[in-house]
């Protein structure tokens, strides 16, 4: 009797959670598995499946210098964008948490860049970093430095793209961190103050550890976004053949390389291989993130 009731409850429970799993199966699991299957074929986008090649695409990818270059670009831009972004966001959150005049205005204000369409952001920053008439070069000249052809070098294109990413996402992350800051119990700070802790010590020993779960979340989201970076570098390369990310692919990210292989190169099987490897890389990086951020607590 009791057993049937238990089974009934379990059945109902499963039924109630089933929508998620069904939707996941259709939109998450199936594409994943299908992509893996396509990646084991020579597959022309327009003409369709050609032949089964097993792991040949994966072997080719491992020896593909363009892929490794794209991977280095992706991580270079990611580090260049994410580290300053998270530091800035934490500082910004701290500032927004103080008693500012017209606080809501500032809090909403930092979110504005995020609401702007990426395409518009891309075009405007493309203009700012234009070679012949950009504001960035004008400023450099004003302080007596040489003009830079921002798209021609690896370092300069990475910086320009990182600035674009940070401009969009710093405010958003600051707001999430602000919410976390506000949930830190005031008593902890009071107790610390009574014990004579400096404000730096309070920040480092109370704020940072209390922010840890939020920092983990923010970092993982930034990582996923960073590794899949696509639109900003694409729009940065205005004109013909934008997908190649510069004349020597100095700022072509893995996601761009994937799209280039799939749609310009028509190599759908190979592009699927890149997609799967990208998926694995994101999983590994997310795991490393988790481990590193766990250490923040044990360090203090």
């Amino acid at each position: 009797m009791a057993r049937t009731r238990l089974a009934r409850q379990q059945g109902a429970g499963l039924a109630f959670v089933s929508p998620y799993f069904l939707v996941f199966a259709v939109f998450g699991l199936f594409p994943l598995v299908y992509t893996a299957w396509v990646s084991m074929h020579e597959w022309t986008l327009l003409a369709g499946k050609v032949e089964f090649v097993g792991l040949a695409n994966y072997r080719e990818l491992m020896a593909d210098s363009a892929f490794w270059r794209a991977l280095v670009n992706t991580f270079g831009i990611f580090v260049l964008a994410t580290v300053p972004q998270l530091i800035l966001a934490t500082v910004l959150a701290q500032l927004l948490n103080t008693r500012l005049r017209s606080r809501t205005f500032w809090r909403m204000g930092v979110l504005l860049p995020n609401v702007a369409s990426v395409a518009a952001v891309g075009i405007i920053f493309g203009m700012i970093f234009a070679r012949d008439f950009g504001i960035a070069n004008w400023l450099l000249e004003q302080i007596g430095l040489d003009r830079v052809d921002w798209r021609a070098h690896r370092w300069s294109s990475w910086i320009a793209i990182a600035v674009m990413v940070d401009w969009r996402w710093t405010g958003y992350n600051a707001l999430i961190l602000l919410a976390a800051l506000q949930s830190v119990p005031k008593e902890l700070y009071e107790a610390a103050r009574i014990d004579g802790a400096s404000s730096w010590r309070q920040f480092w020993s109370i704020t940072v550890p209390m922010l840890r779960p939020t920092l983990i979340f923010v970092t993982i989201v930034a990582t996923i976004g960073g590794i899949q970076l696509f639109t900003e570098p694409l729009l940065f390369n205005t004109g013909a053949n934008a997908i190649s990310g510069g004349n020597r692919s100095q700022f072509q990210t893995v996601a761009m390389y994937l799209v280039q292989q799939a749609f310009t190169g028509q190599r759908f099987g190979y592009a699927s291989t890149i997609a799967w490897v990208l998926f694995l890389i994101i999983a590994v990086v997310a795991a490393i993130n988790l481990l590193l951020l766990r250490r923040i607590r044990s360090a203090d």
Partner: protein
Amino acid sequence: MNRTRQFAATLTAAIALGGLAACGDGGSSDDGEDITLRVNLFGKFGYTEAYKKFEADHPGVKIVETAEGDLGKYNTKLTQQIAAGGDAGDVVAIEEGQTVAFLAAADKFVNLQEKGGDDVKDRWLPWVWDKATTADGKTTIGYGTDVGGLAMCYRRDLFEKAGLPTDRDEVGTLWPTWDEFIATGKKFQSGIGGDKVAFVDSSTNTYNSILMQQGDHTYFDKDDELVFDSNPAVKSAWDYAVEMTEADLSAQLKAFSDEWNAGFKNGSFATIACPAWMTGYIKDQSGEGNAGKWDIATVPGGGGNWGGSWLAVPKSGKHQEMAIELIDYLSGEEGQMLAFEAEGRLPSLPALHDKPELKEATNAYFNDAPVGQLFVAGAAQLEPVYLGTKNVPVRDAVENALRSVENGEVPPAKGWSDAKAAATKAAR
């Protein structure tokens, strides 16, 4: 009993939810009278007037055009839609460089041979029909719109400033060959002095013009084998482009970039090789303020064929019969004539080439240049250039290498070996 019903109900709800999300296109059906035809193009075809006439002749038909400015983006999107069997529109445009690629998916398009195409196929230059037909000759996916006769557009005001002749006939005699074109460029550069004006817009544009002039194929031979290395045309076009860079004749503006567009308006360069379809683009970008400053002369090396488009009807379209009628009209005499008047697109119909309206046509924006003579005169002699299945990725790779030389990122010899490696890889 109760349990199963409960379970079934939840499951049904879940499936319905999933199903709903999966097939959300639905869409309202037509009541048989009113039809909206969606025409999906890139750039400017100049069809506004032609649409109006077609709509007037076909009551209840409404034509909505979407035009993507960026050809690369357009190709990617169209490829996606065709490959996935998605909704690409009722009529789509296929650019010259993509015909071979889309012929690989000929089954996704309406075979125009079965829809009256055989009756009209003789109206085009003979190769126009063949280029949109599969190798076995059984399927034709597109009706040709325009062809890309080649000329050289130049700025009269800048030529005058540099002490060069401005009359278009005299200008044409300055450069019967590309060697003489480069020599003229050097003269221009020393004449213009310290002004920030270059002789050509970019090396790639000139490179492509030279390449498309030489012979009947470029990177691929007609068996679709990569001949990057063995086709002397590629190396010769490359060498001319590098020579221009080394003589400091290029404004180093990447084609279709914001800076290139601004260059038209600011007068950053004095010449640009212009296929017929580009005259409309030059006018739009230079703006009314520069009217009369541009002119058109003959191109060095004598003629050439770069560009041109076809209109196709994807099988995913809902109104295929009406769409076929529309492309028949647009690619017919009236449609092509209207497109020529609006955007300077050179018709691919020999019947039109003899018409005085076309032969004697002038372009007011280009200082009344006799575009009829310049473009139409050579149109009948235009020969098709075979572009392989992987033409676009290979062209992209080679252009990138050329730009890296142009911008001084790598020395020319390294650029050439980069181009070769990248072309081999892209041809895979």
